[in-house]
C-alpha cells in the first residue's frame, strides 16, 4: 500500500466535501469541491484506492500545492 497525497491544484475555498475517510475511490472520483475563479472545481482522486484522511473542512481557504487529503493505493 502506497501513501498518496491529494493536492490542491488551485488556490480557493473548500465549498463541499464529497467523500469520507474509509471510502473506496476510483481514479478521478471527486473528493472535495473547491470554489475558485467563480467555478466549482472538483479535487479528484489521483489514483484508485482508499481515502484515509481529509485534512480540511468546509469554508477553509487552501493554496495551490496544499495537501488536502491522503489516500492509500
Amino acid at each position: 500500500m502506497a501513501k498518496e497525497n491529494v493536492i490542491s491544484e488551485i488556490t480557493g475555498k473548500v465549498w463541499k466535501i464529497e467523500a469520507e475517510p474509509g471510502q473506496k475511490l476510483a481514479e478521478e472520483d471527486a473528493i472535495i469541491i473547491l470554489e475558485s475563479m467563480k467555478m466549482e472545481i472538483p479535487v479528484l482522486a489521483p489514483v484508485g484506492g482508499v481515502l484515509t484522511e481529509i485534512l480540511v473542512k468546509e469554508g477553509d481557504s487552501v493554496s495551490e500545492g496544499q495537501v488536502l487529503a491522503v489516500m492509500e493505493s
Partner: protein
Amino acid sequence: MADYKTLVAEHERRKAHAMAMGGPAKLEKRKAAGLMDARQRIDYLFDPGSFIESGLFATSYIKEARENSQCDGKVAGFGRIEGRPAAVVSCDLTVKGASSSLINVKKMGHLRNTSIRNGNPIVFLNETSGARIPDTMGAEGTGSLGQDPAQFVRMREIPYVAACLGPSFGTGTWFTMLSDFVTMRKGACLAVSSPRVTSIAIGEEVDSEELGGWKLHTEVTGKVDYATDTDEEAIDLLKTFLSYLPSHHNQRPPSRPAPPDSEHDPEAILKIVPPERQKVYDVRKLVRAIADKDSLFEVKPRFGRSAMTGLARLGGQVVGFVASNPMFKAGALDPDGCDKVTSFLVLCDSFNIPIIILTDTPGFLIGIEGERRKAPGKIMNFMSALQMCTVPRLSIVTRKSYGQAYLNMGGTRNSDDMGAWFTADVGFMDPTVGVNVVYGVTAENDPQKFLALKEEIERDSSAYDLGAIYSAQSIIDPRETRGWLIRMLEVHSRDREKGLSQRRLAGWPTTF
C-alpha cells in the same frame, strides 16, 4: 581461395553470432524479468516479415572489442508499420549497455538521414547507459564525437517517436527529447546521467524515480506522453500515434472512413455541458461526442490538464483538438497548459493537421506562482505559434472566453473561422469579477448595485453580440457542432496548397 561452401558457413556463423546479442545468459535474465530484448521489440513493432536490418555486422571500432560488440549495441533497420515504411533503432542493453559509440552513432545517423531523405518516420526504442567508456575518454574520444553537424536538428520533415523502455541516459535521452511523441515503461529512468553518475557528481544518494521516473516526465516535465506497465503497450501507443500522422511533411495525414455510427446523438452534447457557467465538466467527453467514434487519442494526458490536446478524426479526416478543460483548474490556462498547447500546435502545423479549438475558460490562471513560472512568456509563445500556423484553424467558444485567453484560443482573426455556441459569453473578464474591478462593488458590500452592474456588463457579452460584429462568423446550436466543423474543414481545404502547411514552425524546439 576457400570454396563457396566454406564462405557461406563462415557468413552464417558471423550472422548467428551477431544475432545472438549479448548471449543466452543475459537474454534469459531479461526474459525472467518480463522484458523484451532488442530484436523482440522490433518484431513487435513491425509488420511480420517486413524488417530489413542495417548494420548487422557493425561492431565497436576498437578491434579488440569486435567479438563482443554485436551490432555495436544498437539494432537498426527498416520495416513497415500497418503497411507504411518506417525505420527503427532498438537499443540492446545486453551488449555494452547499448552505450553510444562512434560506430552506432554513425549507424543512427544513417538511419535518420535515410528516413528524412525518403520520408518515413523513425522509431527510437531506448534503453541505454549513456556514452561508452573508455571509447569517449580523453580529447581523442570526445573529439571524435559530433561528426554530424545536424545530428540534433529537428526540422520535422518526418515524425520521430521514442519509447523509453529502461535506463535512458546520454544519446538515448537526447533523441527522446527530440521526439514528437514519447512513451515510457514504468520503472524506466530518463535523465541526463544515471543515478550512479549523478550521485557521485553531487555527493548524495539519488533515487531513480525522482531523478527520471514516469511520474516526473508525465506530470512535471511533460516530455513523456504515456507511461505503461509493459514494453508491448509502450510500442502499441507509438503505432497508434503514427496512425494519425503522415509519413512525411509533404503528405496529408492518412484519412479513413468514419465508422458508420459516428453521427452521435446530438442531444448528448447538451447533457455533457451544463448551462450554468460555474459548473464544470470534462471536455474530453465533449470532444468524444463531436469526433468520429472512438477516434480521440490524447497527447500528454497527465500534464497541464487545464488544457486538453488530442488527435482525432472528423468525417474521417485527422484533426488536432485543443480545448480548455473546466474539469481541471476550472479550465484556466496555466504555464504548463500553455506549453502543452504550443507544442501541440507546432506538431499539427508541421504535419498538415487542421486544428480545432474549443474554448470554455475563465482566462489565464493568474497569481504569483504563475508569474514565477513565466506565465507571460508562455502565453506569448502560445500566441506566436498560433499566429504562425498555416494549417486550417477552426475555433468554437462554447460557454465563456475572456480577455487575452480569447485571442489565444483563436478569437476573431486568430482562427480561420470562428463559431460561438448560443451559450457563449465573451468579454474582458468574468462579469462577476469585472463589477468589482471596474466599479469597486462586490456582491457582499452592495448586493443590489452589484446585480444591476453585473447585468449591465453581461448585456453586451453574448454570442449574438459577437455575431453582430462578425467576429464570430457563425452562432451555432451546440447540437450542430459536428456538422459545422466537418463542413468548415471542407471550406478551408487549402486546396491551392494541396492541404499542405507552409511549415513556419518546423524548427520550433521539441521541448519547453
